[in-house]
Protein backbone atom coordinates (compact mmCIF):
# COMPACT_ATOMS: atom_id res chain seq x y z
CA UNK A 1 0.00 0.00 0.00
CA UNK A 2 2.66 2.40 1.17
CA UNK A 3 4.94 1.50 -1.70
CA UNK A 4 2.20 2.01 -4.24
CA UNK A 5 1.49 5.50 -3.01
CA UNK A 6 5.12 6.62 -3.24
CA UNK A 7 5.30 5.13 -6.72
CA UNK A 8 2.34 7.20 -7.85
CA UNK A 9 3.93 10.16 -6.08
CA UNK A 10 7.05 9.62 -8.15
CA UNK A 11 5.12 9.61 -11.39
CA UNK A 12 3.10 12.64 -10.37
CA UNK A 13 6.27 14.58 -9.65
CA UNK A 14 7.83 13.64 -12.98
CA UNK A 15 4.66 14.56 -14.84
CA UNK A 16 4.56 17.87 -12.99
CA UNK A 17 8.17 18.56 -13.97
CA UNK A 18 7.33 17.70 -17.57
CA UNK A 19 4.43 20.15 -17.50
CA UNK A 20 6.83 22.72 -16.09
CA UNK A 21 9.07 22.25 -19.13
CA UNK A 22 6.07 22.60 -21.45
CA UNK A 23 5.19 25.87 -19.68
CA UNK A 24 8.76 27.11 -20.14
CA UNK A 25 8.74 26.28 -23.84
CA UNK A 26 5.23 27.47 -24.76
CA UNK A 27 6.20 31.00 -25.83
CA UNK A 28 9.43 29.77 -27.43
CA UNK A 29 7.55 27.31 -29.59
CA UNK A 30 5.22 30.13 -30.49
CA UNK A 31 8.05 32.54 -31.39
CA UNK A 32 9.81 30.03 -33.64
CA UNK A 33 6.59 28.84 -35.30
CA UNK A 34 5.46 32.38 -36.08
CA UNK A 35 8.78 33.17 -37.73
CA UNK A 36 7.37 31.00 -40.57
CA UNK A 37 4.06 32.86 -40.67
CA UNK A 38 2.94 35.05 -43.51
CA UNK A 39 1.19 37.78 -41.53
CA UNK A 40 -1.86 39.58 -42.75
CA UNK A 41 -1.37 43.26 -41.88
CA UNK A 42 1.08 44.83 -39.44
CA UNK A 43 0.78 42.39 -36.58
CA UNK A 44 2.29 38.94 -36.74
CA UNK A 45 -0.10 37.49 -34.17
CA UNK A 46 -2.60 35.33 -36.04
CA UNK A 47 -1.57 32.27 -38.03
CA UNK A 48 -2.16 32.75 -41.78
CA UNK A 49 0.02 30.55 -43.92
CA UNK A 50 3.44 28.93 -43.94
CA UNK A 51 6.30 30.72 -45.67
CA UNK A 52 10.10 30.73 -45.79
CA UNK A 53 10.09 34.39 -46.89
CA UNK A 54 10.96 35.81 -43.49
CA UNK A 55 13.94 33.51 -43.09
CA UNK A 56 15.12 34.37 -46.61
CA UNK A 57 14.97 38.08 -45.77
CA UNK A 58 15.83 38.22 -42.07
CA UNK A 59 17.26 41.73 -42.33
CA UNK A 60 14.38 43.20 -44.32
CA UNK A 61 13.33 45.43 -41.43
CA UNK A 62 16.08 48.00 -41.60
CA UNK A 63 15.40 49.79 -38.31
CA UNK A 64 15.30 46.44 -36.50
CA UNK A 65 18.59 45.30 -38.01
CA UNK A 66 20.23 48.60 -37.21
CA UNK A 67 19.01 48.31 -33.61
CA UNK A 68 20.38 44.77 -33.37
CA UNK A 69 23.82 45.95 -34.53
CA UNK A 70 23.69 48.79 -31.98
CA UNK A 71 22.91 46.25 -29.26
CA UNK A 72 25.79 44.02 -30.33
CA UNK A 73 28.14 46.99 -30.41
CA UNK A 74 27.09 48.11 -26.92
CA UNK A 75 27.32 44.57 -25.56
CA UNK A 76 30.81 44.07 -27.02
CA UNK A 77 32.25 47.25 -25.50
CA UNK A 78 30.52 46.98 -22.13
CA UNK A 79 31.32 43.27 -21.78
CA UNK A 80 34.99 43.90 -22.55
CA UNK A 81 35.31 46.59 -19.87
CA UNK A 82 33.11 44.95 -17.24
CA UNK A 83 34.82 41.56 -17.61
CA UNK A 84 38.18 43.17 -16.88
CA UNK A 85 36.91 45.24 -13.94
CA UNK A 86 34.89 42.36 -12.49
CA UNK A 87 37.63 39.76 -12.88
CA UNK A 88 40.13 42.03 -11.12
CA UNK A 89 37.71 42.32 -8.19
CA UNK A 90 37.17 38.54 -8.15
CA UNK A 91 40.92 37.84 -8.16
CA UNK A 92 41.44 40.36 -5.34
CA UNK A 93 38.70 38.71 -3.29
CA UNK A 94 39.82 35.12 -3.71
CA UNK A 95 43.59 35.57 -3.98
CA UNK A 96 44.18 37.84 -0.97
CA UNK A 97 43.05 38.04 2.62
CA UNK A 98 42.67 41.70 3.38
CA UNK A 99 40.98 44.26 5.57
CA UNK A 100 37.48 45.19 4.43
CA UNK A 101 36.84 42.19 2.17
CA UNK A 102 33.56 41.48 3.98
CA UNK A 103 32.35 44.98 3.24
CA UNK A 104 33.35 44.63 -0.41
CA UNK A 105 31.39 41.37 -0.66
CA UNK A 106 28.29 43.06 0.70
CA UNK A 107 28.75 46.10 -1.54
CA UNK A 108 28.98 43.87 -4.63
CA UNK A 109 25.58 42.33 -3.92
CA UNK A 110 23.90 45.73 -3.55
CA UNK A 111 23.45 46.47 -7.30
CA UNK A 112 21.90 43.01 -7.69
CA UNK A 113 19.41 43.57 -4.88
CA UNK A 114 18.33 46.95 -6.24
CA UNK A 115 15.42 46.84 -8.70
CA UNK A 116 16.45 47.68 -12.25
CA UNK A 117 14.02 50.56 -12.39
CA UNK A 118 15.78 52.21 -9.45
CA UNK A 119 19.21 51.65 -11.01
CA UNK A 120 18.00 53.04 -14.33
CA UNK A 121 16.17 56.09 -13.01
CA UNK A 122 18.88 57.03 -10.51
CA UNK A 123 21.60 56.83 -13.14
CA UNK A 124 19.42 59.01 -15.37
CA UNK A 125 19.20 61.64 -12.62
CA UNK A 126 23.01 61.61 -12.45
CA UNK A 127 23.29 62.18 -16.20
CA UNK A 128 20.57 64.85 -16.11
CA UNK A 129 22.54 66.89 -13.62
CA UNK A 130 25.66 67.36 -15.75
CA UNK A 131 26.58 68.60 -19.18
CA UNK A 132 29.66 66.56 -20.11
CA UNK A 133 27.95 63.59 -21.74
CA UNK A 134 24.73 63.56 -23.73
CA UNK A 135 22.33 60.65 -23.45
CA UNK A 136 23.27 58.08 -26.08
CA UNK A 137 25.73 55.26 -26.67
CA UNK A 138 28.11 56.44 -23.94
CA UNK A 139 25.45 56.56 -21.24
CA UNK A 140 24.07 53.15 -22.26
CA UNK A 141 27.53 51.60 -22.15
CA UNK A 142 28.27 53.17 -18.76
CA UNK A 143 24.97 51.84 -17.42
CA UNK A 144 25.59 48.34 -18.75
CA UNK A 145 29.10 48.17 -17.30
CA UNK A 146 27.66 49.26 -13.96
CA UNK A 147 25.29 46.32 -13.64
CA UNK A 148 27.62 43.82 -15.34
CA UNK A 149 30.58 44.39 -12.98
CA UNK A 150 28.85 42.79 -9.98
CA UNK A 151 27.65 39.80 -12.03
CA UNK A 152 31.11 39.22 -13.46
CA UNK A 153 32.85 39.61 -10.10
CA UNK A 154 30.51 37.16 -8.34
CA UNK A 155 30.56 34.61 -11.20
CA UNK A 156 34.33 34.62 -11.57
CA UNK A 157 34.79 34.45 -7.82
CA UNK A 158 32.50 31.41 -7.61
CA UNK A 159 34.37 29.74 -10.48
CA UNK A 160 37.87 30.25 -9.03
CA UNK A 161 36.92 29.50 -5.44
CA UNK A 162 38.89 26.25 -5.37
CA UNK A 163 41.90 27.64 -7.23
CA UNK A 164 45.25 26.55 -5.81
CA UNK A 165 47.19 29.80 -5.46
CA UNK A 166 50.35 27.96 -4.30
CA UNK A 167 50.85 27.16 -8.00
CA UNK A 168 51.97 30.77 -8.36
CA UNK A 169 54.59 30.29 -5.65
CA UNK A 170 55.78 27.14 -7.37
CA UNK A 171 56.25 29.02 -10.62
CA UNK A 172 58.12 31.79 -8.87
CA UNK A 173 60.32 29.29 -7.02
CA UNK A 174 61.26 27.97 -10.43
CA UNK A 175 62.42 31.43 -11.36
CA UNK A 176 59.43 32.90 -13.20
CA UNK A 177 58.86 36.64 -12.90
CA UNK A 178 55.47 37.70 -11.45
CA UNK A 179 54.34 38.79 -14.93
CA UNK A 180 55.38 35.50 -16.51
CA UNK A 181 53.74 33.60 -13.66
CA UNK A 182 50.49 35.40 -14.32
CA UNK A 183 50.58 34.92 -18.09
CA UNK A 184 51.70 31.27 -18.05
CA UNK A 185 50.05 29.88 -14.91
CA UNK A 186 47.34 31.99 -13.32
CA UNK A 187 45.63 33.46 -16.37
CA UNK A 188 45.20 30.22 -18.39
CA UNK A 189 43.74 28.50 -15.32
CA UNK A 190 41.18 31.17 -14.47
CA UNK A 191 40.35 31.94 -18.11
CA UNK A 192 37.38 29.51 -18.40
CA UNK A 193 35.70 31.22 -15.44
CA UNK A 194 36.33 34.64 -16.95
CA UNK A 195 34.94 33.56 -20.34
CA UNK A 196 31.81 32.12 -18.74
CA UNK A 197 31.27 35.36 -16.85
CA UNK A 198 31.88 37.34 -20.04
CA UNK A 199 29.22 35.34 -21.90
CA UNK A 200 26.76 35.97 -19.08
CA UNK A 201 27.57 39.69 -19.10
CA UNK A 202 27.12 39.80 -22.89
CA UNK A 203 23.72 38.11 -22.65
CA UNK A 204 22.63 40.49 -19.90
CA UNK A 205 23.64 43.50 -21.97
CA UNK A 206 21.91 42.37 -25.18
CA UNK A 207 18.67 41.68 -23.34
CA UNK A 208 18.61 44.65 -21.00
CA UNK A 209 15.54 46.77 -21.41
CA UNK A 210 14.60 48.67 -18.26
CA UNK A 211 17.95 50.31 -17.40
CA UNK A 212 18.64 51.09 -21.07
CA UNK A 213 15.17 52.60 -21.46
CA UNK A 214 16.04 55.32 -18.94
CA UNK A 215 19.50 56.12 -20.32
CA UNK A 216 19.24 55.68 -24.07
CA UNK A 217 18.41 59.17 -25.32
CA UNK A 218 17.86 58.90 -29.08
CA UNK A 219 19.64 55.54 -29.47
CA UNK A 220 17.48 52.51 -30.28
CA UNK A 221 18.76 49.17 -29.06
CA UNK A 222 17.14 45.89 -30.14
CA UNK A 223 14.79 45.62 -27.13
CA UNK A 224 13.96 49.34 -27.29
CA UNK A 225 13.15 49.07 -30.99
CA UNK A 226 10.81 46.14 -30.38
CA UNK A 227 9.15 47.99 -27.50
CA UNK A 228 8.69 51.16 -29.52
CA UNK A 229 7.37 49.32 -32.57
CA UNK A 230 5.14 46.87 -30.69
CA UNK A 231 2.20 49.28 -30.67
CA UNK A 232 2.26 49.95 -34.42
CA UNK A 233 3.60 46.79 -35.94
CA UNK A 234 5.11 43.43 -35.03
CA UNK A 235 6.92 42.24 -38.16
CA UNK A 236 7.80 38.53 -38.46
CA UNK A 237 11.48 39.53 -38.69
CA UNK A 238 11.39 40.01 -34.90
CA UNK A 239 10.62 36.29 -34.59
CA UNK A 240 13.28 35.38 -37.13
CA UNK A 241 16.01 37.40 -35.40
CA UNK A 242 14.92 36.13 -31.97
CA UNK A 243 15.00 32.54 -33.24
CA UNK A 244 18.46 33.12 -34.72
CA UNK A 245 19.77 34.42 -31.39
CA UNK A 246 18.14 31.45 -29.69
CA UNK A 247 19.68 28.85 -32.02
CA UNK A 248 23.08 30.52 -31.82
CA UNK A 249 23.01 30.50 -27.99
CA UNK A 250 21.92 26.86 -27.98
CA UNK A 251 24.81 26.03 -30.32
CA UNK A 252 27.27 27.80 -28.01
CA UNK A 253 25.78 26.05 -24.98
CA UNK A 254 26.00 22.66 -26.69
CA UNK A 255 29.60 23.08 -27.82
CA UNK A 256 30.48 24.10 -24.28
CA UNK A 257 28.72 21.08 -22.76
CA UNK A 258 30.16 18.63 -25.29
CA UNK A 259 33.67 20.02 -24.82
CA UNK A 260 33.21 19.74 -21.06
CA UNK A 261 31.96 16.15 -21.34
CA UNK A 262 34.84 15.19 -23.62
CA UNK A 263 37.31 16.74 -21.23
CA UNK A 264 35.92 14.87 -18.22
CA UNK A 265 35.85 11.66 -20.29
CA UNK A 266 39.53 12.20 -21.13
CA UNK A 267 40.29 12.81 -17.49
CA UNK A 268 38.55 9.58 -16.53
CA UNK A 269 40.45 7.69 -19.22
CA UNK A 270 43.76 9.04 -17.95
CA UNK A 271 42.81 8.16 -14.40
CA UNK A 272 41.98 4.61 -15.51
CA UNK A 273 45.30 4.21 -17.30
CA UNK A 274 47.07 5.51 -14.25
CA UNK A 275 45.29 2.99 -12.05
CA UNK A 276 46.19 0.15 -14.43
CA UNK A 277 49.83 1.22 -14.35
CA UNK A 278 49.76 1.30 -10.58
CA UNK A 279 48.31 -2.19 -10.42
CA UNK A 280 51.14 -3.49 -12.57
Amino acid at each position, binding site marked *: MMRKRTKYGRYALNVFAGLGLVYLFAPIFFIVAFSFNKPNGNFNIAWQSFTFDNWLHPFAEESLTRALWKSLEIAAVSTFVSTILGSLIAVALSRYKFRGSGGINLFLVLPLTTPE*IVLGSSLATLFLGQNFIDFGMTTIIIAHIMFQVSFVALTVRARIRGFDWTLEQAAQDLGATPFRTFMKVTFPLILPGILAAGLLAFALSIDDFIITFFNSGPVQTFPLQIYGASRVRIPPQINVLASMILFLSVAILMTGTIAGMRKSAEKQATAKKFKLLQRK
Partner: protein
Amino acid sequence: MTETVVRQNRIARNADRVGMAAMIVASICLVALGAHWVSGPMVSVVVLVLLLVLGGVLGLAITGGPEARRLLAPYGLLKPGMLWLALFFLAPVWSLLRISLSTKESRFSVKYNFNWAFQNYATAFKDFGKQFEHAFVYAAIATVLTILIGYPLAYVIAFRGGKYKNILLGLVVIPFFTSYLIRTIAWSTILADRGFVVRALNAVGLGNVFEWLHIMDNGKLLNTPAAVIGGLTYNFLPFMLLPIYVSLEKIDVNLVNAAGDLYSSATRAFRKVVFPLSIPGVFAGTLLTFIPAAGDFVNAQFLGNPNTTMIGNSIQDQFLKQNNYPVASAMAAVLMVSIATLVLLYTRIFGTEDLA
Protein backbone atom coordinates in the same frame (compact mmCIF):
# COMPACT_ATOMS: atom_id res chain seq x y z
CA MET B 1 67.78 60.67 6.98
CA THR B 2 67.26 57.62 9.18
CA GLU B 3 64.08 59.16 10.46
CA THR B 4 62.55 59.30 6.99
CA VAL B 5 63.56 55.70 6.34
CA VAL B 6 61.89 54.61 9.58
CA ARG B 7 58.77 56.53 8.71
CA GLN B 8 58.73 55.05 5.24
CA ASN B 9 59.04 51.57 6.73
CA ARG B 10 56.15 52.20 9.01
CA ILE B 11 54.01 53.35 6.10
CA ALA B 12 55.12 50.37 4.04
CA ARG B 13 54.25 47.96 6.85
CA ASN B 14 50.81 49.46 7.12
CA ALA B 15 50.34 49.65 3.38
CA ASP B 16 47.06 47.75 3.61
CA ARG B 17 45.54 50.47 5.77
CA VAL B 18 46.86 53.10 3.36
CA GLY B 19 45.41 51.18 0.40
CA MET B 20 41.98 50.85 1.97
CA ALA B 21 41.91 54.48 3.10
CA ALA B 22 42.91 55.60 -0.39
CA MET B 23 40.13 53.53 -1.95
CA ILE B 24 37.52 54.94 0.43
CA VAL B 25 38.70 58.55 0.04
CA ALA B 26 38.81 58.22 -3.75
CA SER B 27 35.27 56.75 -3.78
CA ILE B 28 33.97 59.58 -1.59
CA CYS B 29 35.59 62.12 -3.92
CA LEU B 30 33.88 60.54 -6.92
CA VAL B 31 30.49 60.44 -5.19
CA ALA B 32 30.97 64.10 -4.19
CA LEU B 33 31.72 65.05 -7.77
CA GLY B 34 28.94 62.97 -9.31
CA ALA B 35 26.23 63.90 -6.81
CA HIS B 36 27.07 67.62 -6.75
CA TRP B 37 28.03 67.87 -3.09
CA VAL B 38 30.51 70.50 -4.17
CA SER B 39 30.34 73.30 -6.69
CA GLY B 40 32.50 76.00 -8.19
CA PRO B 41 36.15 76.13 -7.11
CA MET B 42 35.61 73.27 -4.63
CA VAL B 43 35.31 70.92 -7.62
CA SER B 44 38.94 71.48 -8.53
CA VAL B 45 39.92 70.92 -4.87
CA VAL B 46 38.14 67.56 -4.83
CA VAL B 47 39.69 66.57 -8.17
CA LEU B 48 43.10 67.52 -6.76
CA VAL B 49 42.53 65.41 -3.62
CA LEU B 50 41.46 62.48 -5.81
CA LEU B 51 44.57 62.72 -7.99
CA LEU B 52 46.84 63.16 -4.96
CA VAL B 53 45.42 60.09 -3.23
CA LEU B 54 45.71 57.89 -6.33
CA GLY B 55 49.19 59.23 -7.09
CA GLY B 56 50.25 58.72 -3.48
CA VAL B 57 49.25 55.05 -3.47
CA LEU B 58 51.00 54.55 -6.80
CA GLY B 59 54.13 56.19 -5.37
CA LEU B 60 54.00 53.97 -2.29
CA ALA B 61 53.67 50.89 -4.47
CA ILE B 62 56.73 51.89 -6.49
CA THR B 63 58.97 52.94 -3.59
CA GLY B 64 57.64 50.76 -0.76
CA GLY B 65 59.28 47.47 -1.69
CA PRO B 66 57.77 44.00 -2.23
CA GLU B 67 56.06 43.76 1.17
CA ALA B 68 54.15 47.02 0.64
CA ARG B 69 53.29 45.99 -2.90
CA ARG B 70 51.89 42.68 -1.67
CA LEU B 71 49.74 44.51 0.89
CA LEU B 72 48.56 47.06 -1.66
CA ALA B 73 47.84 44.56 -4.43
CA PRO B 74 44.23 43.64 -3.51
CA TYR B 75 43.21 47.29 -3.27
CA GLY B 76 44.88 48.02 -6.58
CA LEU B 77 42.89 45.20 -8.21
CA LEU B 78 39.65 46.32 -6.59
CA LYS B 79 40.01 50.00 -7.30
CA PRO B 80 38.95 50.30 -10.97
CA GLY B 81 35.70 48.36 -10.45
CA MET B 82 34.94 49.89 -7.07
CA LEU B 83 35.47 53.44 -8.28
CA TRP B 84 33.20 52.71 -11.25
CA LEU B 85 30.48 51.52 -8.86
CA ALA B 86 31.04 54.54 -6.61
CA LEU B 87 30.53 56.96 -9.48
CA PHE B 88 27.77 55.14 -11.36
CA PHE B 89 25.92 53.31 -8.57
CA LEU B 90 26.39 55.22 -5.29
CA ALA B 91 26.45 58.76 -6.67
CA PRO B 92 23.25 58.16 -8.71
CA VAL B 93 21.41 56.90 -5.63
CA TRP B 94 22.41 60.10 -3.88
CA SER B 95 21.28 62.29 -6.77
CA LEU B 96 18.00 60.34 -6.94
CA LEU B 97 17.33 61.15 -3.27
CA ARG B 98 18.27 64.76 -3.92
CA ILE B 99 15.93 65.20 -6.88
CA SER B 100 13.16 63.45 -4.93
CA LEU B 101 13.31 66.38 -2.50
CA SER B 102 13.48 69.10 -5.15
CA THR B 103 10.85 71.20 -6.90
CA LYS B 104 10.67 72.21 -10.53
CA GLU B 105 11.40 75.89 -11.06
CA SER B 106 8.27 76.22 -13.16
CA ARG B 107 5.89 73.87 -14.88
CA PHE B 108 7.86 73.64 -18.11
CA SER B 109 11.31 74.19 -16.70
CA VAL B 110 13.94 71.48 -16.66
CA LYS B 111 15.67 73.05 -13.65
CA TYR B 112 15.20 71.76 -10.13
CA ASN B 113 15.83 73.40 -6.83
CA PHE B 114 16.64 71.33 -3.79
CA ASN B 115 14.38 72.55 -0.98
CA TRP B 116 13.42 69.52 1.16
CA ALA B 117 10.22 69.18 -0.83
CA PHE B 118 8.66 66.31 1.13
CA GLN B 119 5.39 66.87 -0.68
CA ASN B 120 6.82 64.75 -3.52
CA TYR B 121 6.66 61.78 -1.17
CA ALA B 122 3.14 62.71 -0.11
CA THR B 123 2.14 62.79 -3.79
CA ALA B 124 3.85 59.46 -4.38
CA PHE B 125 1.87 57.77 -1.62
CA LYS B 126 -1.40 59.55 -2.25
CA ASP B 127 -1.60 59.24 -6.03
CA PHE B 128 0.26 55.98 -6.51
CA GLY B 129 -0.63 53.93 -3.42
CA LYS B 130 -2.59 51.48 -5.56
CA GLN B 131 0.44 50.93 -7.81
CA PHE B 132 2.69 50.24 -4.82
CA GLU B 133 0.16 47.73 -3.55
CA HIS B 134 -0.02 46.01 -6.95
CA ALA B 135 3.76 45.84 -7.22
CA PHE B 136 4.23 44.14 -3.86
CA VAL B 137 1.18 41.86 -4.03
CA TYR B 138 1.81 40.68 -7.60
CA ALA B 139 5.51 40.17 -6.95
CA ALA B 140 4.78 38.22 -3.77
CA ILE B 141 2.25 35.93 -5.48
CA ALA B 142 4.61 35.44 -8.44
CA THR B 143 7.45 34.53 -6.05
CA VAL B 144 5.32 31.88 -4.33
CA LEU B 145 4.30 30.49 -7.73
CA THR B 146 7.93 30.30 -8.89
CA ILE B 147 8.72 28.25 -5.78
CA LEU B 148 5.75 25.94 -6.43
CA ILE B 149 6.76 25.41 -10.07
CA GLY B 150 10.52 25.71 -9.77
CA TYR B 151 11.15 23.53 -6.73
CA PRO B 152 9.68 20.26 -8.10
CA LEU B 153 11.37 20.86 -11.44
CA ALA B 154 14.75 21.52 -9.81
CA TYR B 155 14.21 18.47 -7.57
CA VAL B 156 13.48 16.14 -10.48
CA ILE B 157 16.52 17.41 -12.41
CA ALA B 158 18.86 17.21 -9.43
CA PHE B 159 17.81 13.79 -8.09
CA ARG B 160 16.34 11.96 -11.07
CA GLY B 161 18.18 13.59 -13.94
CA GLY B 162 20.94 10.97 -13.95
CA LYS B 163 23.17 11.43 -16.94
CA TYR B 164 20.65 13.74 -18.59
CA LYS B 165 21.06 16.26 -15.77
CA ASN B 166 23.03 18.78 -17.82
CA ILE B 167 20.76 18.43 -20.83
CA LEU B 168 17.65 18.98 -18.69
CA LEU B 169 19.25 21.99 -17.07
CA GLY B 170 20.10 23.32 -20.52
CA LEU B 171 16.46 22.83 -21.56
CA VAL B 172 15.34 24.89 -18.59
CA VAL B 173 17.71 27.75 -19.48
CA ILE B 174 17.20 27.76 -23.27
CA PRO B 175 13.85 29.64 -23.29
CA PHE B 176 15.59 32.54 -21.60
CA PHE B 177 17.99 33.01 -24.50
CA THR B 178 15.25 34.83 -26.35
CA SER B 179 14.64 38.44 -25.52
CA TYR B 180 12.62 39.21 -22.41
CA LEU B 181 10.35 41.57 -24.35
CA ILE B 182 9.72 39.11 -27.17
CA ARG B 183 8.80 36.40 -24.66
CA THR B 184 6.34 38.71 -22.96
CA ILE B 185 4.81 39.79 -26.28
CA ALA B 186 4.53 36.11 -27.21
CA TRP B 187 2.54 35.47 -24.02
CA SER B 188 0.23 38.34 -24.85
CA THR B 189 -0.51 36.66 -28.17
CA ILE B 190 -0.95 33.22 -26.63
CA LEU B 191 -3.44 34.51 -24.08
CA ALA B 192 -5.24 36.77 -26.56
CA ASP B 193 -9.03 36.94 -26.36
CA ARG B 194 -9.64 34.93 -29.52
CA GLY B 195 -6.48 32.83 -29.13
CA PHE B 196 -6.59 29.05 -28.93
CA VAL B 197 -5.98 28.93 -25.16
CA VAL B 198 -9.12 30.89 -24.36
CA ARG B 199 -11.10 28.92 -26.94
CA ALA B 200 -9.77 25.59 -25.65
CA LEU B 201 -10.60 26.49 -22.05
CA ASN B 202 -14.13 27.44 -23.00
CA ALA B 203 -14.55 24.34 -25.15
CA VAL B 204 -13.59 22.03 -22.27
CA GLY B 205 -15.83 24.02 -19.97
CA LEU B 206 -13.00 25.20 -17.75
CA GLY B 207 -13.87 28.80 -18.57
CA ASN B 208 -16.38 29.06 -15.73
CA VAL B 209 -13.97 27.46 -13.25
CA PHE B 210 -11.30 29.97 -14.19
CA GLU B 211 -13.84 32.73 -13.96
CA TRP B 212 -14.75 31.58 -10.48
CA LEU B 213 -11.06 31.47 -9.50
CA HIS B 214 -10.75 35.08 -10.71
CA ILE B 215 -8.11 34.02 -13.23
CA MET B 216 -10.42 34.90 -16.10
CA ASP B 217 -12.44 38.04 -16.29
CA ASN B 218 -15.51 38.19 -18.55
CA GLY B 219 -14.11 35.43 -20.73
CA LYS B 220 -10.73 37.14 -20.99
CA LEU B 221 -7.34 35.82 -19.97
CA LEU B 222 -5.29 38.70 -21.28
CA ASN B 223 -5.34 42.09 -19.55
CA THR B 224 -6.17 40.61 -16.15
CA PRO B 225 -4.16 40.64 -12.90
CA ALA B 226 -3.71 36.88 -13.36
CA ALA B 227 -2.02 37.44 -16.72
CA VAL B 228 0.40 39.95 -15.17
CA ILE B 229 1.23 37.57 -12.33
CA GLY B 230 1.59 34.73 -14.82
CA GLY B 231 4.01 36.79 -16.90
CA LEU B 232 6.09 37.73 -13.86
CA THR B 233 6.14 34.07 -12.79
CA TYR B 234 7.31 32.96 -16.21
CA ASN B 235 9.96 35.61 -16.70
CA PHE B 236 11.59 35.22 -13.29
CA LEU B 237 11.27 31.43 -12.94
CA PRO B 238 14.95 30.69 -13.74
CA PHE B 239 16.07 33.04 -10.95
CA MET B 240 14.22 30.78 -8.54
CA LEU B 241 14.94 27.44 -10.19
CA LEU B 242 18.71 27.76 -10.60
CA PRO B 243 19.61 28.66 -6.97
CA ILE B 244 17.30 25.87 -5.74
CA TYR B 245 18.94 23.45 -8.16
CA VAL B 246 22.41 24.47 -6.98
CA SER B 247 21.53 23.85 -3.33
CA LEU B 248 19.78 20.52 -4.08
CA GLU B 249 22.68 19.39 -6.22
CA LYS B 250 25.07 19.86 -3.30
CA ILE B 251 23.09 17.47 -1.06
CA ASP B 252 24.80 14.16 -0.42
CA VAL B 253 22.41 11.40 -1.55
CA ASN B 254 23.80 9.21 1.23
CA LEU B 255 22.07 11.46 3.74
CA VAL B 256 18.71 10.67 2.16
CA ASN B 257 19.58 6.96 2.04
CA ALA B 258 20.61 7.10 5.69
CA ALA B 259 17.23 8.56 6.57
CA GLY B 260 15.61 5.68 4.70
CA ASP B 261 17.78 3.14 6.52
CA LEU B 262 16.60 4.64 9.77
CA TYR B 263 13.01 3.85 8.71
CA SER B 264 12.09 7.34 7.66
CA SER B 265 9.36 7.55 5.05
CA ALA B 266 10.18 9.32 1.81
CA THR B 267 8.03 12.31 2.73
CA ARG B 268 9.60 12.55 6.15
CA ALA B 269 13.10 12.27 4.71
CA PHE B 270 12.25 15.09 2.36
CA ARG B 271 10.82 17.22 5.12
CA LYS B 272 13.59 16.59 7.62
CA VAL B 273 16.65 16.22 5.39
CA VAL B 274 16.31 17.50 1.84
CA PHE B 275 14.15 20.56 2.37
CA PRO B 276 16.15 22.11 5.25
CA LEU B 277 19.36 21.68 3.21
CA SER B 278 17.78 23.42 0.21
CA ILE B 279 16.60 26.46 2.17
CA PRO B 280 19.60 28.63 1.17
CA GLY B 281 18.59 28.11 -2.48
CA VAL B 282 14.95 29.01 -1.81
CA PHE B 283 16.16 32.03 0.14
CA ALA B 284 18.44 33.33 -2.63
CA GLY B 285 15.80 32.53 -5.25
CA THR B 286 13.15 34.49 -3.36
CA LEU B 287 15.31 37.61 -3.34
CA LEU B 288 16.35 37.20 -6.97
CA THR B 289 12.70 36.79 -8.00
CA PHE B 290 10.87 39.22 -5.76
CA ILE B 291 13.17 42.21 -6.23
CA PRO B 292 13.10 42.42 -10.04
CA ALA B 293 9.41 41.43 -10.11
CA ALA B 294 8.41 44.28 -7.78
CA GLY B 295 10.16 46.82 -10.01
CA ASP B 296 8.99 45.40 -13.32
CA PHE B 297 6.74 47.30 -15.69
CA VAL B 298 6.99 45.26 -18.90
CA ASN B 299 4.59 42.50 -17.84
CA ALA B 300 1.99 44.92 -16.55
CA GLN B 301 2.26 46.88 -19.78
CA PHE B 302 1.85 44.00 -22.20
CA LEU B 303 -0.33 41.62 -20.17
CA GLY B 304 -2.31 43.93 -17.91
CA ASN B 305 -4.92 46.66 -18.17
CA PRO B 306 -4.92 50.27 -16.89
CA ASN B 307 -6.17 49.01 -13.52
CA THR B 308 -3.31 46.58 -13.00
CA THR B 309 -0.38 48.99 -13.40
CA MET B 310 2.51 48.47 -11.01
CA ILE B 311 4.79 51.06 -9.47
CA GLY B 312 7.32 50.48 -12.25
CA ASN B 313 4.78 51.70 -14.81
CA SER B 314 4.16 54.85 -12.79
CA ILE B 315 7.86 55.62 -12.30
CA GLN B 316 8.50 55.10 -16.00
CA ASP B 317 5.51 57.21 -16.98
CA GLN B 318 6.28 60.11 -14.60
CA PHE B 319 9.99 60.06 -15.43
CA LEU B 320 10.08 59.59 -19.19
CA LYS B 321 6.67 60.84 -20.36
CA GLN B 322 5.67 63.58 -17.90
CA ASN B 323 9.30 64.54 -17.13
CA ASN B 324 8.15 64.87 -13.53
CA TYR B 325 11.52 63.81 -12.16
CA PRO B 326 10.90 64.77 -8.49
CA VAL B 327 7.81 62.61 -8.01
CA ALA B 328 9.27 59.77 -10.11
CA SER B 329 12.42 59.88 -7.99
CA ALA B 330 10.38 59.89 -4.80
CA MET B 331 8.56 56.76 -5.95
CA ALA B 332 11.82 55.07 -6.92
CA ALA B 333 13.30 56.01 -3.53
CA VAL B 334 10.29 54.56 -1.69
CA LEU B 335 10.56 51.37 -3.75
CA MET B 336 14.28 51.12 -3.03
CA VAL B 337 13.93 51.72 0.70
CA SER B 338 10.96 49.38 1.15
CA ILE B 339 12.71 46.59 -0.73
CA ALA B 340 15.88 47.13 1.29
CA THR B 341 13.81 46.95 4.50
CA LEU B 342 12.06 43.79 3.36
CA VAL B 343 15.39 42.21 2.42
CA LEU B 344 16.86 43.11 5.82
CA LEU B 345 13.86 41.71 7.69
CA TYR B 346 13.89 38.61 5.55
CA THR B 347 17.62 38.11 6.12
CA ARG B 348 17.09 38.52 9.87
CA ILE B 349 14.38 35.88 9.93
CA PHE B 350 15.81 33.33 7.51
CA GLY B 351 19.40 34.61 7.70
CA THR B 352 22.04 32.71 5.79
CA GLU B 353 25.63 33.42 4.97
CA ASP B 354 25.46 31.58 1.65
CA LEU B 355 23.87 34.52 -0.10
CA ALA B 356 26.95 36.39 -1.21
